[in-house]
């Protein structure tokens, strides 16, 4: 490109004008809230009256809050379970579906369907499926003669968290399955043929070829499951249990919302948001690194 001669110093505004709306909006509603959230986390504030400087007291308060720690522990359990289940089931299904299979598109379309439903709809639907007296699940167990398996799926504090996790897994299996299918299709068939010639069995082929070749797909899927569990499980938990019974399904986001909306403690809610950011930051950073890794930038 030889447009402007090096001597000419006139700044071309066109590219900056093109970027301006995006930069402006992004600053206003992503960066500014973040900074404002950090600021408010050092104050006592109910959202209306004057703010009162507290220094680090909100953070100290959070650290000594048993419910916060329970919410954090639940969030971790949630994240680990969701990540493991989603990825193992999705990879297994992708492995079957990626081969020439009767009704392949039919299966894919169906299994992907919950991805397009909102958490609210899914939450209401599954609350009803889990309903102890009229719900489908207990009805089915009763019909199968498994009376002893009948449970209060969302009302029993020992299992409520797992019941919610199962629904989250149910929603996203299709999504991860499609990503794994794309990853599997990209693996060269030559590798498997060579392994066949060497007499490798199915398990060997899976762990020696499939897994290493899928490496970046696996990393992306795992990162997405983890960040999802930390930063976007408010909807489903709130709709299904509201964090109960007895905080058994309380996750960080539901507790942040309760603190802000019900207790009007904006300072503490913002402090918890910042702590949550510290937890998800590392996963988001890794995801970003992978996304821009092979970007050619001149």
């Amino acid at each position, binding site marked *: 490109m030889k447009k402007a001669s090096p001597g000419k110093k006139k700044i071309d505004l*066109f*590219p*900056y004008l*093109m*970027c301006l709306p*995006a*930069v402006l*909006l*992004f600053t206003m*509603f*992503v960066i*500014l*809230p*973040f900074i*404002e*959230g950090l600021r408010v986390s050092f104050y006592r504030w109910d*959202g209306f009256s004057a703010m009162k400087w507290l220094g680090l007291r909100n953070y100290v308060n959070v650290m000594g809050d048993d419910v916060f720690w329970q919410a954090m522990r639940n969030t971790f359990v949630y994240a680990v379970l969701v990540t493991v289940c989603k990825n193992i089931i999705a990879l297994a*299904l992708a492995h079957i*579906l990626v081969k020439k*299979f*009767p009704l392949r598109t039919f*299966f894919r379309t*169906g*299994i992907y*369907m*919950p991805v*397009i*439903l*909102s*958490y*609210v*709809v899914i939450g*209401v*639907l599954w609350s009803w499926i889990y309903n102890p007296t009229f719900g489908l699940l207990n009805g089915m167990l009763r019909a199968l003669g498994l009376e002893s398996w009948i449970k209060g799926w969302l009302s029993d504090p020992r299992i409520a968290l797992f019941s919610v996790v199962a629904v989250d897994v*149910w929603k996203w299996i299709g999504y991860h399955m499609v*990503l794994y299918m794309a990853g599997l299709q990209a693996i060269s068939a030559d590798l498997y043929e060579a392994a066949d010639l060497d007499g490798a069995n199915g398990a060997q082929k899976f762990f020696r070829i499939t897994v290493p070749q899928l490496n970046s*797909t696996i990393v992306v899927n795992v990162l*997405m499951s983890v960040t999802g569990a*930390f*930063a*976007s499980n*408010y*909807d489903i938990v*709130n*709709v299904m249990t509201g964090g109960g019974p007895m905080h058994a399904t309380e996750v960080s*986001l539901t507790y*942040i*919302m309760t603190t802000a*909306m019900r207790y009007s403690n*904006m300072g503490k*809610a*913002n402090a918890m*948001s910042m702590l949550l950011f510290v937890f*998800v*930051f590392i996963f*988001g950073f890794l995801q970003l690194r*992978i*996304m*821009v890794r092979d*970007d050619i930038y001149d």
Partner: protein
Amino acid sequence: MIGWKRTVPRILWFLVLLLFFVLTVYPVIWMFFGSVKGPSEFYTNSWGLPEAPRWSNYAEAWVTAGLGRKFLNSVIVTAGSLLLLIPINSCAAYAIGRLKFKGRGLIYSFLLLGIMIPSGVLGIPTFTVALRLGLNNTYIGLILVYVAQAIAMGVFIMRSFFISLPRELEEAAMMDGCTRFGSFVHVILPLAKPGVMTQIIFNGLTIWNEYFMANIMLTNANKLTLPLSIANFVGQHTTNYPMLFAALSISTLPAIITYMIAQKGFIEGISAGAVKG
């Protein structure tokens, strides 16, 4: 010709798939069945086909929950967000992807920060800012927040489309008398149509289904979007399940119908952000 060793596992895999298929699809179909059952039939015949479809449940839900207004609110917010975010993301991505200027890398990195800050973390802080700006309980407030949160991924996706196009395109267009902006709008943007579609599908669906931010920013009953009103509906009408299920179906149908029509584009659009990896 095919021996037992191949047939048996295939049947087994087929059954596994079938099991997962039924597990995912049956609850959704069951939701539609439930939406046309009578109040008592809902309990007595909870599994099967409705005996005589009661379409009046839909009319009842539409009127009782004021779904018409909520539906309109969702359309306004979703369409408004898309109308803003497509041009905003496309312009920025075009400049970053195809123009040379000082600070280009810096602006790109700045916008990509958005990928590291998920909306869950931003919820309460955004409420705080919107409160100061008087933007809570307004369509435009929610729209601006949705657009801002879609910028990082949108610019990322559009840029990858723009950089894949040959360099000579703008020069040719400008020789034909196009302005720089004109060559972007008339020549480059149409070639990045798949990127625009991806954004429409991905953001359209995300915003249509969005609950967390809407729940934080909207309290005025006249402004509620569908997911919000469905969640409220549960508390108020827990006794009339068929009507509740009709409401669920109403809020889901636009997405399901679009999905059925454009299934392939849908799956690609929603997965686009991740496939890059």
